[in-house]
């Protein structure tokens, strides 16, 4: 049997390769070094992330297929690579002290974060449904474990179990969808699918439509779109807070990367079929997320519902799916990464061991006792609400602008109304911090150096993108130029 040995283009796999090696080294370091010395593990993982970032930058602007079209290293994928790498970096910085206080400072935590990031990056650059699926599973398995990392906490276990059961279920939907798409088109290659669909004379093939629907369910679960969102509040509340921060941004970014690549490019010829569905899902996701967030008393639960609402805003960009629509998704994702990570960072600083200080009521009077922390929280929450001059405002502006330009005026109106609703519950936290008297004694907070660095990065990102958005918007526009 003659076998054509494939050409191996290691360079285009640079970021993923570097991060995988870093993850393995972190694992080995955490096993072979004595138990007391856990610092090398987190330094090593941060170093790996920096190198992977650098490697992503060097690949920028030279889109090419590699490994027999399994991956397509274009700016779009690299942009999402950078977003998830930054997310992972900030999440690790936030975790160092948090894990020490919880008494679970183990090197495996950092290794799992890196494994999850590798999976996310494969989802972002994957140009074959199989690559995307394997990336998604690598990410999901690591995150299931991370959600249950605080093993002595019941809620952490509950979070991991719920996420695992429902996640496995959604993976099955995704796989079933892939199987149908393969049956209908004869390929799992994204480019091959789009070529087949552009030449196909018969687009109403039920198998194709069923496959598209099942893929929508699979991705919808990962981005926490209504009605596949039921797991989100419980999982986000129970998981260690730094993991919640990581998954609320990283998983969403990676899933949206694959979602956009599959739907807005590969299945673009089916757009008339899926756009109405996406419209309905976007409206439901925004509205339900915002309304449910109003009623929350726990701040992590509130941010969980808020992250559902944000998934809805980003889906508005997918409904538009024009060049402006896609680039506004990228821009929004970057902005969302900084502001959401920042908000969770403040929660981590204020949280005490044993899930204390997690109710919004506990934040009463924080503005007087810890002015810096309260100021940071206000900036992040203003940004999440979309109040200028923050990143969140510009992001929403471009997303809704893209929707209006494509003629989805009602969608944009519903989106803006939803943002107004969201101002209420974001601002409520600020009001509690500055207007209310403390309900109890503050137990003291710890500013660890790594956390300070993480918060500084997040706040600079949030404000810089908000005040000077144009370079970042150009970056987002550049990212989608040479897709597919």
């Amino acid at each position, binding site marked *: *049997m003659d*076998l*054509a*040995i*494939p050409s*191996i283009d290691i360079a285009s*796999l640079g970021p993923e390769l570097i991060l*995988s090696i870093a993850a*393995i080294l972190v*694992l080995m370091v955490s096993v072979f070094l004595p138990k007391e010395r856990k610092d090398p593990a987190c330094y090593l993982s941060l170093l790996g992330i920096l190198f992977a970032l650098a490697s992503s930058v060097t690949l920028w602007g030279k889109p090419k297929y590699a*490994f*027999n079209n*399994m*991956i397509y290293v274009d700016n779009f994928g690299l942009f999402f690579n950078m977003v998830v790498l930054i997310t992972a970096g900030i999440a690790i910085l936030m975790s160092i002290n948090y894990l020490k206080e919880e008494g*679970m400072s*183990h090197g*495996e935590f950092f*290794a*799992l974060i890196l*494994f*999850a990031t*590798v*999976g996310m990056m*494969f989802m972002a650059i994957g140009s*074959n449904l*199989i*690559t995307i699926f*394997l*990336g998604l*599973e*690598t990410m999901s*398995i*690591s995150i*299931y*474990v991370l959600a*249950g*990392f605080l*093993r002595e906490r019941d809620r952490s276990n509950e979070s*991991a179990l719920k996420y695992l059961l429902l996640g496995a279920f959604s993976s099955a939907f995704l796989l*079933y969808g892939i199987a*149908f798409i*393969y*049956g*209908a*088109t*004869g*390929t799992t290659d994204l480019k091959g699918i789009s070529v*087949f669909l552009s030449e*196909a004379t*018969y687009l109403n*093939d*039920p*198998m*194709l439509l*069923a496959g598209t629907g099942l893929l929508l369910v699979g991705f919808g679960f990962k981005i926490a779109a209504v009605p596949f969102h039921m797991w989100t509040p419980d999982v986000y509340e129970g998981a260690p807070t730094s993991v919640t921060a990581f998954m609320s941004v990283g998983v969403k970014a990676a899933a949206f990367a694959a979602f956009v690549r599959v739907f807005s490019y590969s299945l673009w010829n089916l757009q008339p079929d899926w756009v109405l569905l996406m419209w309905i899902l976007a409206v439901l996701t925004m509205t339900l997320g915002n309304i449910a967030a109003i009623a929350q008393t726990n701040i992590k639960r509130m941010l969980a519902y808020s992250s559902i609402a944000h998934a809805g805003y980003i889906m508005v960009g997918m409904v538009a799916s024009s060049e402006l629509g896609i680039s506004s998704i990228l821009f929004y994702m970057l902005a969302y990464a900084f502001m959401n990570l920042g908000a969770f960072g403040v929660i981590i600083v204020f949280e005490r061991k044993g899930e204390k200080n997690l109710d919004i009521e506990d934040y009463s009077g924080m503005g007087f006792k810890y002015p810096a922390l309260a100021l940071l929280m206000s900036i992040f929450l203003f940004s999440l609400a979309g109040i200028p001059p923050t990143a969140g405002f510009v992001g929403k502006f471009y997303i809704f602008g893209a929707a209006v330009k494509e003629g989805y005026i009602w969608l944009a109106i519903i989106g803006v109304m939803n943002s107004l609703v969201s101002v209420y519950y974001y601002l409520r936290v600020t009001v509690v911090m500055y207007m209310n008297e403390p309900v109890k004694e503050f137990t003291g907070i710890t500013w660890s150096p790594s956390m300070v660095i993480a918060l500084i990065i997040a706040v600079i990102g949030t404000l810089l993108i908000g005040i000077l958005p144009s370079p970042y918007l150009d970056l987002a526009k550049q990212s989608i130029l040479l897709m597919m």
Partner: protein
Amino acid sequence: MTAFFFFPIAIVVLISASLVIFFRNPVHSALSLLLTFFSLAGLYILLNAQFVAAIQVIVYAGAIMVLFLFVIMLLNLDKVKKERERHPLQKAFGILIASLLLVVLGSVIASGILYGTKGIYTVEKVAAIGNTKAIAGLLFTDWILPFEITSILLLAAIVGAIVLSKKEL
């Protein structure tokens, strides 16, 4: 010829799969699942997918069944006799959704027309090369990247299993 074997095996699959759900005793369910796995392997053979059939027996009927039984023993489900309180509409709603999904997917499959471009591997060609060899020829050349990603996936799973269940980390 194929139909002669297909229908008996398919009936066994359906019955044993339903029994997994309907049995009260979890160990009985697990054994019924074992029968499902074995008969599925039979269906794979009818589809000319002998390698997949072998994997089905080795991995599913072998390793995964062992895990199932261990977990059942670990949880000691006998003592959990209390029925969980359910919303009265929950069951009806679940049945409705499940039957809708069954109708939709069933009609899709029953339509039975594949529009996609067919690959180069016909039944005769696969038989000439050998099933396992044909799979290997693709897996280790064109699909090398997914193959290597699998190892990262498995490594993450090893770490995860130990992190979650080891007494002293």
